[in-house]
Structures are given as C-alpha cells and as structure tokens.
C-alpha cells in the first residue's frame, strides 16, 4: 500500500526526521487558515499517489493566505494521471541550500534492501541514474546488520552527502524496518540555509502482508477509488477493476492473469481480474460472481478454474448458489478442469440454466465469452 505524502511525512516525523511544518485539508477555506498559521506563505501540494505532480500543476507556492485559498481551490478536484485530488497539504516554505536523494528499496534479484543515494536530489532520479550513473550510489544493506551509524556513514560518503545526513539515513532505515515498508524515499532531502537537514517530500510503500502486526494501518488505509473494488475488498476477494466487457473469474493469480490475456487475444477486453484463490468455497465463488455481475460494463462472464486444491464441484455449487440470489441476465461461460471436474460439470448440467454455457478448454471458453460479449 502506497502512502500519501502527508502520511509519509507523519511517519518521518514520528521517527525523528525533521520535516517542514504542514497541515492537510480538503477545504479551500481551511487552507487560508492553515496558511495564516504557517506564517502567510505556503506551498500548496496536491495529495495523490502518483509522481509528476509538479509538472501537472499540482504543486504551487502561495504568497499569502488569500492566495493559498485560491490555489487550494484550483488544485482540489484536479485530475493528475487519472488520480483525483481530494486533499491538499500546505507546507511552510524552506530556504534550500542543497538538495539530495535518499531511499531504501527492495532489490528483488539480490533478495535484500538497497540504499540508493545521490547528492543530486530534487529531480527525476531515474534520469540522473541513466545519464550519469556515477552520481548515484547503490549500496546493499545486509539484513542481519541493518543500517548502523557506520553503515550510514558509508552510504553518505559514497553518495557525497554531508555528514549531517548520517542520522537521517539511520532513522529512515528504522522507518523501513519498524513500519514494515517496502520502499522509503526522500526526494528531496534538503540542507537549509541554517544548515538543518529536512525531508521535503517523501514516498513510503507499506507491505500489505505485514498488516497483522501493524495495527495502526487501518487508519492509514485510503478508501478504494473504485466502488466495485471496495465491495470486493469488503468480501475479502482479490479483485482488480479493468475497463473491458468480459468479466473474468478464476483460481490462482497466474491462471487468472493468463485468462485475461487469452480473452484479449480473442478480440475482447477483460472487465476485471478476480482470483477466488486456492481451496475456494462455494460461498467465495458466489460472492465473486455477484461482484462481477454488478459491473454494468460486463457483457459476459468467463469462469476459468483448474481445480488443484480448489475442487471444481465446490465452484459449480457456488455458481448454482449465486444463481439463486443474483438474477443472471448475462451469459456465463464456465470451464472446469482438474480436481472433481466431472462432478462439477454434472452439477452445472443438472441446473441447466439457459445462460450458463460450459466449455472444455481454456482457449475455447475464452473465445466463446469474447464472442458473447462483442455480439451486438
């Protein structure tokens, strides 16, 4: 889960990293009051989980409280790369002497975290890394050792950062490990005219798998932008809304992804990704089907199950159950293979719903669902 800038800022502050004074609001009127509290001038920053805010006009300096209100009014509701701005953060402007870049990222290939640091912050680090790789230090962190002061000094030295950043590097590692983050990034980390080191902007991605030991996360959780994704999440379903017309339900992330591709290969567009998971019960199948059917864009639904741990007869029972509670108005193509497939197919044959079609292969099922979705 990605955090908003203001949430990342809060975490930094809790771990003793200096940040500019700031407040968040969704109201232009309040923005005026905040600017007054911050001393009049304020940087108004759109809170969206995407990069490139500055270029899109989502970050502006307001000279006084009235300007802050006007600017907040302009930025709130803006669309930045498909993300609607619902909140702005107003931050006290800072006199910047130097800008740096620091982050800890997961190096999937090596299986550990990597410190990335550069004395050239404030801009696109990928560009710096591509054009002048020497300007970016990449230092692996031994998971057993972590980032001690000595390690932080090594990172700062390699990147050409001033010695005052060593403490920030240690604290940022604490943010990463104590909060179960997959990524922490400060860009820019600045040195002010007074010589203080401040995190001016930051990005934090938390590990959803660590939710069980990070109780505070509930509060940080942002609502799903898509109502169907929210409904699916409430039922514990692994669902991603896409913009096509063939609803896709399957078991196992790989098989569902593959099914989306096969549908696309048949000339239709998948409407969603829905993985009912391993060992899915009839209840989960029924829940999944009702979520997919409630998407008005869906013209046909493809259920593709290869029963391994999942039993096909349970899936078929789930479909039959769903037919009791949801009035099926769209065709449903079902392909069942693997564990208990024969029994599962018989369950659907017995129900003999006119809109439920069975197919014997994955490709054949996808072709049929695609044809049914694009028929008119």
């Amino acid at each position, binding site marked *: 889960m990605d955090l908003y800038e203001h949430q990342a800022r809060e975490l930094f502050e809790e771990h003793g990293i200096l940040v500019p004074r700031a407040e968040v609001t969704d109201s232009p009127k309040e923005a005026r009051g905040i600017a007054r509290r911050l001393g009049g001038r304020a940087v108004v920053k759109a809170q969206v989980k995407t990069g490139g805010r500055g270029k899109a006009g989502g970050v502006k300096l307001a000279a006084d409280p009235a300007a802050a209100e006007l600017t907040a009014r302009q930025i709130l509701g803006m669309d930045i790369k498909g993300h609607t701005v619902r909140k702005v953060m107003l931050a006290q402007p800072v006199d910047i002497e130097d800008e740096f870049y620091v982050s800890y990222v997961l190096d999937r290939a090596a299986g550990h*975290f990597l410190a990335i640091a550069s004395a050239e912050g404030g801009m696109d680090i990928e560009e710096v890394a591509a054009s002048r790789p020497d300007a970016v230090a990449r230092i692996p962190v031994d998971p*057993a050792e972590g980032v001690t002061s000595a390690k932080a000094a090594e990172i700062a030295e390699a990147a050409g950062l001033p010695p005052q950043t060593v403490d920030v590097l240690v604290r940022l590692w604490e943010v990463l490990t104590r909060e179960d983050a997959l990524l922490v990034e400060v860009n820019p980390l600045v040195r002010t005219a007074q010589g203080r080191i401040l995190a001016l902007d930051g990005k934090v991605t938390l*590990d959803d*798998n*660590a939710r069980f030991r990070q109780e505070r996360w509930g509060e940080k959780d942002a609502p799903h932008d898509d109502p169907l994704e929210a409904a699916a999440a409430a039922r514990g379903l692994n669902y991603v809304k896409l913009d096509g017309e063939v609803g896709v339900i399957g078991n*196992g992330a790989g098989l569902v*992804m*593959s099914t989306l591709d096969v549908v696309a290969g048949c000339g239709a567009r998948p409407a969603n990704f829905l993985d009912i998971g391993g060992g899915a019960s009839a209840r989960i199948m029924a829940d999944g089907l009702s979520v997919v059917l409630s998407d008005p864009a869906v013209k046909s639904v493809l259920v593709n199950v*290869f029963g*391994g741990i999942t039993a096909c007869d349970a899936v078929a029972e789930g479909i039959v159950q769903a037919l009791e509670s949801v009035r099926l108005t769209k065709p449903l193509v079902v392909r069942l293979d693997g564990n208990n497939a024969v029994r599962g197919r018989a369950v659907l044959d017995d129900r003999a719903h006119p809109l439920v079609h069975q197919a014997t292969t994955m490709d054949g099922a996808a072709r049929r669902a695609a044809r049914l979705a694009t028929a008119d």
Partner: protein
Amino acid sequence: MAVFLSKESKVLVQGMTGGEGMKHTRRMLAAGTDVVGGVNPRKAGRSVDFDVPRSTDGQGGTPVTVPVFGSVREGMAATGADVTVVFVPPAFAKAAVLEAADAGIALAVVITEGIPVHDAVAFHAYAAAKGTRVIGPNCPGLISPGQSNAGIIPADITKPGRIGLVSKSGTLTYQLMYELRDIGFSTCVGIGGDPVVGTTHIDCLAAFQDDPDTDLVVLIGEIGGDAEERAAAYIRDHVTKPVVGYIAGFTAPEGKTMGHAGAIVSGSSGTAHAKKAALEAAGVPVGGTPTETARLVLARLEAERVATGG
C-alpha cells in the same frame, strides 16, 4: 533422477498438525512421499495417524503413523530427514525457516502465503549462509512425479517423464502439467510469486541443465521484477537444452498488483512484453496461451526425436 527432490528424499512437515498441514500431508503420503515426521514443539512425542488413499482422489486405504518431533533438529536426528515443508501461519514462518536452516536441512519448501517481505529477506539471507536451499515462499512446492511431492501440487494430473518445469504461478503449473500429461515430467518446481523468493528460475534452469533425465524445460513467468530477463540471459549463456516459455500478464495495467505480491508493473519495468522479448531474443519460443505453449513443447520434442532418429 530428478532435481531437488527424489524418492530418496525424507520429508518433515512443519505445521503438520494444523488443518492445512494435515490435509496436505495426507496428499503427499498418497503421492508416495516419504514423510518421516511432523514438527510441533507443543506436540512432541505424539504421532498422527493418516488414512492414506491409494490415489489422491480415492478414499481410504493404508494407515500410516507419522511421529511428531519438538524441533527440526530432533526430527532430522531421528529420521535423517533432508527436506522440510513449511505450512505454519505467516506470523511464525520466519522462525520456522530460521529453525530449519539452523538445523542444517538441505531443502526448505515454504508454502505459506502472506509472509512479510522483511521476514522473507531475513530468512533467505540466513538460509543462504547456512547452506539451506529455500523454495518459496507463497509457492505450491515441487513434485517429482512418481517419486515424491513436497507441497500442494496435485499429484495425479501428470506422470513421470522428461520435461522439467519452473513456474512463478501454482495454477499455471497445474495447467501446463495437465496439458503435457501424456509426456510427463522429471520435476515441476513452483518457485512462488512473491517479490523475494529463495530458489529462482535460474537455479532451476541450472539444475535441469545438469539433470540427465530432463530433456526440455518449460519456464513460466509473469509480470513484475526482472527474473525472466535474467533467466533469458542465463539460458543464452549456459543452457543447451531446449527451453519453451510462457508469460502471464500482458493485459495487466501499470501500478495494480495482480494477485501475487510481486506481480506488479511499475513504471516501464516488469512488463510481460519485455519478458517475452528477452526470452525470444535468447532463442526461447514463448507461447501466447498455455495451450499454445504446450504445442510448442510437443513440436520441439518431435523435432528432437526426428533429429536424433529416436
């Protein structure tokens, strides 16, 4: 022969006495796996009776009694176990793998889904230092059909043969095993779809390359990371056996996690297109669907047969 797992493998199950552990231990026994013990410090000294069916779909059969040990170390000392399968919940998985590595076991297969990445990073580093191979986490395990099955892969969808398979996805593993069921497999390894996994595509490719009983390798990848690109480079430089590939996730949008924790396209990296292109550049044909992938395998085996006059 087979890779990583054979009929000689002696298997412990950490978490055997839990619901999933019981269910899958029974299936492993039915597949012929030599399950020599369970591990649970609170139930040490007891044993569990399994009614093992003759096939995984059948009912009833032979009774098998499996002892429960207090630790992996005790289990190894008493039985000579060299493999452990980890079924414990995410919160305890790290401790379970550290314990297994500490005991010096050769192979730990971590089935558990939803392990925090920091825990995985920690236990992978520890296991590597202790010389323990980890497969997973969040994986279906591995099977050498007709010999042994460590994990949750259904054993009766294929038979012994000469294809090796390595995959990030459980269900795509099953799908391809099923499509190629008449040819059969030496070993199928599900390495898992998490951002950090112990055994990689490359590790499996190297093992299959050295395995005299594997003629061809099927490599299944998906969006996220660059494991497939690195595998492609490895194949180009080190693999002489034919490899056929399949990649899932061409339709995945940027920034959305598609089920697996590691399956996410971020920025310009991790796309299915890039992975397919890298594999094809290394001479690996990549199927557009699982079925087409199976056809490519059959065609390649046929070509080899003709070429060698077999």
